[in-house]
C-alpha cells in the first residue's frame, strides 16, 4: 500500500455509510491459464441495509460468483469488496470467518443444514459460534423458528423436513446471527410453488418489519416479481439495475 492509498482508504472509511456493501471493479476469471472464463466483468454495485434485491440472469451469467464474492467465500481476480468501508478482499481467513459470522448470513440453494442437528440445534449452533449467552441462544432460536412457521418442528432433523421447511430453517439460521445482509443463492430452486411462496412471504415480512436485508440470486420469476430492486446480469457484466 502506498501512502496515498492509505489516505484514500481512510477518507473512504470516514465517508462510508454503515450498512453498505460495495464492489469496486470486481472481476473474476476462472482458469486464467487454461481456458479462461470471465465469470465477472468489472462489476460496480452498492447494496444498502434494508434492501430486498434479486440478481437475475441466465445460467452461467455469474450470479453465484457475485454472491460468493460479496460473502467473502471466493477471491476476486481484480477489484475488491468492501463492507461498511472495511475491505474484505485479502483479509486473513480467520478474521474473515469472524467478520462473516457477524455481518453476513447465508442461505444456499439446497442441503444447507447440518444433517445431524435438529432444526433447533441448527439455528442455535451459529449463535454458539458467536459465543452468545445460552439463555439468549435458546430464546432466540425458538422465536426465529416460530417466526418461520416451524413451531412444531424444533426437534426434527433436516431429513425429516420438506425442502421448503429446510429452507425456512436455513433462513432462521441466517437470521440468528443478526447479520446486516442475508445472501441467498437460488433459495427457491428446489421448492414447489406453495413452499416458495411461503418462504418469500416470510422473508418479505422480515424485510418489511425488521428491516432485514436480503440479496437473492435467482432466475425464478416468483422471486423476481417480489423484489424491490432487480439487477440483471449477462455474461458476467451488469446489464441493468432497476429499483421499483
Amino acid at each position, binding site marked *: 500500500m502506498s501512502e496515498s492509498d492509505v489516505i484514500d482508504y481512510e477518507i473512504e472509511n470516514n465517508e462510508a455509510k454503515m450498512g453498505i456493501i460495495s464492489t469496486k471493479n470486481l472481476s473474476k476469471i476462472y482458469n486464467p491459464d487454461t481456458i479462461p472464463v470471465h465469470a465477472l466483468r468489472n462489476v460496480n454495485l452498492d447494496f444498502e441495509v434494508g434492501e430486498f434485491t434479486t440478481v437475475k440472469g441466465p445460467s452461467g451469467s455469474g450470479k453465484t460468483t457475485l454472491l*460468493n464474492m460479496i*460473502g467473502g*467465500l*471466493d477471491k476476486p481476480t481484480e477489484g475488491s469488496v468492501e463492507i461498511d468501508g472495511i475491505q474484505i478482499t485479502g483479509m486473513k*481467513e*480467520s478474521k474473515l*470467518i*469472524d467478520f*462473516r*459470522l457477524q455481518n453476513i*448470513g*447465508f442461505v*444456499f440453494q439446497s*442441503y*444447507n*443444514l*447440518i*444433517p*445431524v*442437528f435438529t432444526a433447533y*440445534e441448527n439455528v*442455535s*449452533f*451459529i449463535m*454458539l*459460534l*458467536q459465543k452468545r449467552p445460552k439463555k439468549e441462544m435458546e430464546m432466540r432460536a425458538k422465536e426465529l423458528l416460530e417466526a418461520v412457521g416451524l413451531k412444531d418442528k424444533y426437534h426434527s432433523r433436516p431429513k425429516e423436513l420438506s425442502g421448503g421447511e429446510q429452507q425456512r430453517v436455513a433462513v432462521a*439460521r441466517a437470521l440468528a*446471527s443478526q447479520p446486516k445482509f442475508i445472501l441467498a443463492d437460488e433459495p427457491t430452486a428446489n421448492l414447489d410453488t406453495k413452499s416458495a411462496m411461503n418462504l418469500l412471504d416470510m422473508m418479505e415480512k422480515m424485510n418489511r418489519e425488521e428491516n432485514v436485508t436480503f440479496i437473492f440470486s435467482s432466475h425464478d420469476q416468483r422471486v423476481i416479481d417480489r423484489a424491490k430492486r432487480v439487477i440483471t446480469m449477462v455474461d458476467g457484466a451488469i446489464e441493468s439495475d432497476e429499483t421499483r
Partner: protein
Amino acid sequence: MYLKLAWRNIWRNKRRTLITVSSIMFAVVCALFIESLERGGHNQMINNMTNFHTGHIQIQDERYEEEPSLDNSIEYDSSFSERILEIDDRIYNVVPRIESFMLAAGEEQSRPAMVLGIDPEAENRLNELKNRIVAGRFFEPGDGSVVMGEGLASRLNVAVGDSLVLLGQGRFGMTASGIYEISGLFRHPLREFNNQIVYLSIPDAQWLFSMEGMITNILITPDQLKYNDPIAENLERALSDENLNILTWNEMIPELIDAIEFDRMSTRVFMGILYVVIGFGIFGTILMMTLERLREFGILLSVGMYRWKLAVIVFIETFFISILGIISGFALGLVVLSYFYFNPIQLTGDMLEMLEEMGFEPTLPMAIAPDIFMWQGSVIFVMSIIICLYPTVKIATMDILEASRS
C-alpha cells in the same frame, strides 16, 4: 454441542462406522493371533531346548564349552547339588547329567545315539520325562537298564525287554561298552529327541564311561524365568574359583536364537503387508466419508466455524472410531487367544508331517503376553491416527466452495 456434533456424526452412517470399527478390530485380532502363535511356537522351541537339552543355566568344567568331552568332566556328589541350592533360594531344580555320543546297537541294526546319564527324579522335575513313557517303565538307579526314544527303538528294531548294546569311548580314551536291558520307551514329539536319546542312570553311566564320581554338566532351573540371569550371576560369584564355567541358555543355543530372530523378521514383513492392506481398507472408508461430507464442511466453514475447530471435531470422530476398533479388537483377541491357549491347535495330515519334518511339535501353543497387546495395539493405533489425519488435512486445506461445485 461440538461433542454432540461429533458423537452424532459417528452414528450417522452406522454401517460405515461398523465397517471401519470391524476392519480395525479384524486387524487387531489378526495381528494378535499371528504374534501370539509365533511367540508361542518360539517359546515352545526354547522350552524344548532348555528342558531336554541345555537347561536354563548350566555349570560345566571350564574347558567343556571348547571341547565337550568326557575328559573335561567335573566331580560331583549329591552334596554339590545341596550347595548349589544354598547359593540362591530362587533355584528350583538342580539336574546333574553325563552327556555323550555313542553307537547304540540292537541285534540287527546300529545307530548313533545321544547317551544321557541322569538322575531320574531331578530329570523328571525338569521335563516330566516319566509322563512321556509309552511302553514299559522307568528304570531304578543302578539297575542296569535304559529308557530310550521310541523312534530310535524302532530304527534298531528293539522293544521293551530286549537288550541294547552301547559302544563308544569313555574318559581318557578308555573303551566304553555295555549291554543293557530296555526297561521303557518314551515318545517325544520332536524327532530330534525321539530318534536319538538313550537315558540311563548316573551310576550306570559313570561305570560305562569309567568316570566314577564325575559328571559332565549340571542343569539349573530357576523358580521363574526372570530370575535366570541374577541366579547365573550369583553362581558365577559363588563358584568363581573352582574352574567352572556358568552358561545361560541363550549362550548355549545361539543358532536357535538366530533362527528365531530371522523367523520374527519374516513375520514382521508379513505383518507389514497385512497392515498396509488393512490400512488401505480403512483409508477407503475414511476417504469416502470425507468426500461425502465436503459440502457439510463447506457450509460449516461458510457460516463461521474455524477450520481448526472443525478439523478437531472430525479428528475426534475418527479417533473415537479407531479406539473403539482397537478396544473391541483387544476384547475379541483376548477371547480368541485364551481359547487357543487352553485348546491349542492340533495339526493333522500333511501339514503335520511337514512341520514335524521341520522340527515342530503337532500342537501349536499360544503365548498371551501383555507386551504383544501393547506392541500390536500401538502399531495399529498409530496407523489409524495417520489415516484419521486425512480428513483433518483435507479440512485444513480445502476450498470452501470446493464441495458446492462438485
